[in-house]
């Protein structure tokens, strides 16, 4: 296994920084095998793992669309009405294992399948992507079966049995005979394929007995392609599954690296962070235009794109230190975001790279409008939401939900309490509230120089904002400092290792995977926080290639 070893991971030092938070603290779990000598210690062997039970994941809407595009090679219109994807612990990919489909949802899938089939048959590129034979007549079962079998192989991510192909061909032939139109039969066959559970669900049963059961080569190929591309495997990957070589370490690693170099990896990486950072909600995020002059329907999509472009560049183009995400002064902005950030836009059209000046007080993910807009109210900031995001999403600490019926409102601003800091005093002085708010609010107050859509503001209600505070004993003076404090937090590595693992396996991790997650986090650190290596490491890990006992 190829892995870069970078000098002096300072895990021991970082572990020495105490953390106090509700619930799990991933930083307590990484093995402290790094030494203070400056020389990297040898990486321990992969720990044994007892993975969770297999999950049956429904395709998310994005995966559904990507699968169609990769199969038929054109961008197809998919009706917007679908039953919504479900989020579990912040991830749609995990929620996909828990969602059910109502009778109405089945109807929606049928309607979508029909709409898609119509488009596929009407588009020459899409049509020829799977129809290579010339039908002898309206009821040519062999030709229809061949074409539908090819489409099904791609969409179902596995070989189609002779029986399945024959049945698809027979269905198409029957409809073709009745209608006198070969295409009508083909259409019916496509609709059937697109409504099949083999398309709509990701089946990962594994094989064998016991608590560590390997995925079949096709199941593994599918899990790999959805992790890295958020879509179906390509022919090359299916070929490795077909000859069984995908089970070999070297082949699996080579495939993972090939796929990371493919343009589709951008789509995959985007989806991962769309989910982890909840960016997919930005296009529909509503802000009060009376409170924020810069608010506009275009701002949310722009903010989402900025964050995703930065991650793409950092991870795929440069394979840089992932922690730079939190402290970089580089930003990718369009005109609208540049105006919000009060910097010159790089170009009149689209997005361009700019360097944020230190005087602007803004850097990294926490200076981006995506975070600042999402973790705020419609007409104001929210120190609690911003702090909670840092704790739960970036540091993977748990913050309990507020008790039922508790009044979460904060007082209106007045002369005595012009800034949010004063108004939140209630939260922090009331022991009932403070148990959790002391974990979130001091962090969130560090971002108070940015309003509810991310525009810099030195004052609130004419009072100077005090953004200073401390995060678990490490003090900061403002958001610029706070970005570094968060970036230095030892929870970052285990947290993002956990995100990737959960995203890739489609379920929450179980106790039997704790050591593996710590091992992945350690590898992430040793690689100089290469997110690419974290992805490859995850793919090669036994937790990704196996499933636990069926439940």
């Amino acid at each position, binding site marked *: 296994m190829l892995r870069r070893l970078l000098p002096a991971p300072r895990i021991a030092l970082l572990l020495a920084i105490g953390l106090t938070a509700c619930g799990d603290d991933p930083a307590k779990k990484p093995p402290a095998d790094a030494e203070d000598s400056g020389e990297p210690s040898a990486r321990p062997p992969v720990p044994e793992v007892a993975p969770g039970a297999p999950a049956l994941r429904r395709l998310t809407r994005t995966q559904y669309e990507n699968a169609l595009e990769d199969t038929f090679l054109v961008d197809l219109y998919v009706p917007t009405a679908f039953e919504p994807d479900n989020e579990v612990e912040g991830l749609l990919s995990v929620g996909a294992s828990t969602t059910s489909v109502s009778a109405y949802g089945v109807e929606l899938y049928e309607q979508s399948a029909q709409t898609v089939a119509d488009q596929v048959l009407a588009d020459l590129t899409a049509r020829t992507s799977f129809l290579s034979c010339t039908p002898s007549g309206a009821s040519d079962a062999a030709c229809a079966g061949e074409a539908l079998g090819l489409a099904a192989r791609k969409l179902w991510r596995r070989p189609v049995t002779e029986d399945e192909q024959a049945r698809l061909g027979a269905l198409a032939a029957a409809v073709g005979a009745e209608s006198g139109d070969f295409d009508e039969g083909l259409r019916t066959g496509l609709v059937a394929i697109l409504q099949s559970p083999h398309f709509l669900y990701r089946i990962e049963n594994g094989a064998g007995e016991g608590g560590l059961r390997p995925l079949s080569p096709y199941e593994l190929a599918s899990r790999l392609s959805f992790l890295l591309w958020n879509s179906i495997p390509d022919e090359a990957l299916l070929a490795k599954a077909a000859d069984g070589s995908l089970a070999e370490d070297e082949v699996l690693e080579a495939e993972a690296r090939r796929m990371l170099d493919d343009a589709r990896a951008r789509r995959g990486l985007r989806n991962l962070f769309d989910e982890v950072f909840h960016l997919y909600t930005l296009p529909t995020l509503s802000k009060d*235009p*009376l409170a*924020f*002059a*810069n*608010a*506009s329907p275009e701002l949310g999509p722009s903010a989402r794109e900025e964050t995703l472009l930065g991650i793409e560049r950092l991870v795929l183009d440069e394979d840089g230190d992932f922690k730079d995400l939190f402290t970089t002064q580089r930003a990718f902005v369009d*005109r*609208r975001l*540049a*105006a*919000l*950030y*009060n*910097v*010159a*836009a*790089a*170009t*009149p059209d689209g997005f*361009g790279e*700019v360097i944020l000046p230190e005087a602007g007080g803004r850097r990294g993910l926490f200076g981006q409008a995506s975070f600042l807009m999402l973790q705020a109210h419609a007409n104001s900031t929210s120190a609690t939401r911003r702090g909670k995001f840092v704790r739960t999403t970036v540091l993977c600490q748990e913050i309990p939900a507020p008790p039922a019926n508790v009044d979460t409102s904060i007082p209106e601003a007045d002369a005595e309490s012009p800034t949010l800091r004063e108004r939140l005093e209630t939260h922090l002085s009331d022991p009932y509230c403070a148990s959790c708010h002391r974990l979130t609010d001091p962090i969130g107050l560090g971002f108070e120089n940015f309003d509810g859509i991310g525009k810099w503001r030195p004052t609130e209600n004419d009072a100077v904002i005090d953004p200073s505070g401390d995060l678990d004993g490490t003090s900061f003076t403002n958001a610029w400092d706070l970005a570094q404090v968060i970036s230095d937090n030892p929870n970052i590595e285990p947290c993002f290792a956990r995100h990737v693992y959960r995203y890739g396996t489609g379920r929450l991790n179980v106790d039997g995977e704790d050591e593996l997650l710590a091992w992945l986090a350690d590898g992430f650190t040793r690689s100089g926080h290469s997110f690419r290596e974290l992805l490859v490491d995850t793919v090669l890990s036994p937790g990704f290639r196996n499933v636990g006992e069926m439940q």
Partner: protein
Amino acid sequence: MRHPALPLLLPLCLGLACKAPEKEAAELDDTGAPAQVCAADGPSTTFLMNKVRFARSEGGVSWGSDLDGEVSAGGGTAGCGKADLVDPEGTPGIDNAFAGLLPALEQTEAAAISGLLQASVGAGELLLTVEVLGLDDYQNDDCVAVQFGNAEGQPLVGADGELLPGQSFSRNPNDPVTRVDEALVEGGRLTFASDFGIKLQILDANLDLDVTQGVVRMDMAPDGQSATGHFTGGVSIDYMLTEIDKYAIDQGLKDLINTVMPAVGDLKGDTGECDHFSIAFEFDAIPAYFYLDQEEAN
């Protein structure tokens, strides 16, 4: 065209901490060599005039500048016999003859002339910029350079209907930038001499006014996040009448302009005749930028 009032304007202008445009002869030092121009190094700040309006006169008070260096009470030879105004700070000799014509124009079909001026800002047709180069301190800086020009682009308008501050534009390649070196900022105030062009719409007439030998004065907020000011200059009466005549606008309005305009000339042109009238605009300004890729290409 060189305005005959320039010799009078320059001493005044220097007193107000500004310099003539670059195209004028460089000053000489005591040895006869060209005086060394201070280097306006360091950060630059660009202000975009997001609100532009005609400077109005009320009770003889109006914003504007003294373009001819004369204080005229009217009736004599000074100021072409036209009475000057006083600005709200009490400065006499303010030239703004157009302010006297404006109420009459607004009684005609050109009633919306002020609104149209602002509308052209919102439409991106009138994007005047003041670029202050080497500005280290918004309140006091003894060496800055100033570029006055037009920007291009469709402005981003905020939810409040105002142009968003901090937005970026292209430079207008067809509009030469006037550059003034060795200007200074005192108490946030920057004053410099500059020609400028301004688009003025009167009903169907789209006039590109060539405003000569103007003076721009801008007061910057201490944090540099806003500015206010005014600019004043002279417009050829002949040009105005010729241009207006080209358009099919209401004949009554044409008659009014043809009758009144020749009578408002308060500045002397090349011929020494009082064939120019002064016009002053007030403005508010916000920070703005030029696109980085275009700046790098330059």
